[in-house]
């Protein structure tokens, strides 16, 4: 069993890593990672705009943003892929590749999910921040841009990293519309070998586990550092412990 796994890895590592790259489209892990990075980077501005619209008192902004967030939360990603696959060629007039379809889907879907993260981050800040910024003469948007968002986004970094992990997991659905990403590559290998499905999908699961697990650990570590920093900001300066008013008695003789 284990020798099979190593044999499959030795014969197909290039396919798993970059797909059929020099002779075909970039695929494998490289495609998965590029798709997720582009997805989250492009979703980010959308999510900030959606979050601000969700918090806005104007119904014209608030309602469409709320509707989009609820649709993304209530409809399976697969269904949204079908919609994009069908609508984008109609809107722009020519066919697009599976990669672009998947990217558009991820931007919409992740944009809506990240918007909720951004909104939670903004709402978690004390009201005094906004009030003080307004009292100092900033406009609403100016206060958002210069005072609220920098703090909120910094505090949200761990959540964004875990959203990135979700994005990596969601790129697997690209397999359904023939995006040559990692899951697709594994299925290609499985179709060539035919007799070792367990080994092939076991390898696939392990690769995803290693990538996502390390990113999850990074998110946890980041969360701890940011929490420590915030605790430090609230109390004494970070790094240097505040001098105690009363020196504690030493326990050692």
């Amino acid at each position: 069993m284990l020798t099979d796994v190593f044999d499959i890895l030795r014969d197909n590592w290039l396919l798993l890593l970059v797909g059929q790259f020099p002779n075909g489209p970039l695929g494998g892990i490289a495609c998965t990672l590029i798709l997720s990075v582009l997805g989250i980077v492009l979703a980010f501005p959308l999510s900030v705009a959606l979050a601000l619209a969700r918090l806005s008192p104007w119904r014209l902004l608030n309602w469409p943003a709320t509707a989009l967030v609820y649709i993304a939360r209530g409809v399976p990603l697969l269904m949204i892929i079908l919609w994009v696959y069908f609508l984008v060629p109609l809107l722009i007039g020519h066919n697009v590749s599976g990669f672009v379809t998947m990217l558009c889907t991820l931007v919409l879907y992740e944009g809506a999910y990240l918007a909720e993260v951004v909104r939670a981050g903004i709402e978690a800040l004390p009201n005094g921040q906004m009030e003080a910024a307004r009292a100092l003469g900033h406009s609403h948007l100016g206060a958002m841009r210069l005072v609220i968002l920098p703090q909120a986004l910094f505090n949200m970094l761990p959540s964004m990293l875990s959203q990135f992990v979700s994005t990596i997991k969601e790129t697997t659905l690209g397999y359904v519309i023939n995006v040559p990403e990692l899951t697709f590559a594994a299925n290609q290998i499985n179709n060539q070998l035919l007799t070792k499905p367990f080994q092939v999908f076991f390898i696939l699961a392990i690769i995803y586990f290693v990538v996502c697990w390390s990113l999850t650990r990074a998110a946890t570590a980041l969360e701890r550092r940011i929490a420590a920093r915030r605790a430090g900001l609230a109390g004494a300066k970070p790094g240097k412990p505040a001098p105690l008013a009363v020196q504690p008695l030493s326990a050692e003789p």
Partner: protein
Amino acid sequence: MKGFDLMAILLNPEFRSMLVHGLQVTLTIAACSWLLAMALAVVLLVIRLSPSRITERVVAGYVSYHQNVPTLVQLMLWYFGISSLLPGALQGWLGEHSGEALFAIIGLGLCQAAYFSEDLRSGLRSIPAGQAEAARALGHSYIGSMRHVLMPQAVRNALPALVNHSVSLFKNSSLAMAIGAAELTHAVKEVENQSFRAFESYLLATMLYLVFSLLIMAVGAWLGQRTRVATAR
């Protein structure tokens, strides 16, 4: 492109029965895997609360695997991989008795159990230690204090997360399409192929998914309202 006509699908008995059957399969998969996930989550929670380090590690590994491997890959591993290791007679039986749906239920249930058990655990951890101590001091047994004092509060604290994960379980049931189960998304693709009305069939399916997701969210909000108590802060 034909004009927009929802009735062309709704009034066609063949398309309608395909969609109804798809919805039935989706709801069956979602409900069965939810029950499996909840039952398993409680078992995982109990194991994790036991003082043994080894079992704790095993459960942590289980949770970590299911949270860090994409659900689709887990389903593929079950349907293509693990099913191939089963004895031939069982494989044949599964092939005849819609094994896709069964593996979808197992895969989704085991995956979501990891999320549910984490929700319950963080709900339990957010209860002050004094609650457990007070319950024991009042003469409750360990099990009794869990059942009457700690778990009701833990479930209440965990309710929003449990509802969110229930919605995502319902949404993930669409992944069963990738392993060939005839659920709603699969039925919609079929209807689209036969009717050439992509817009209308997608719209119907989206509405159905949205209605049930919003229903789960509404039930969650209602339960949250009902179980809310004034907590002193």
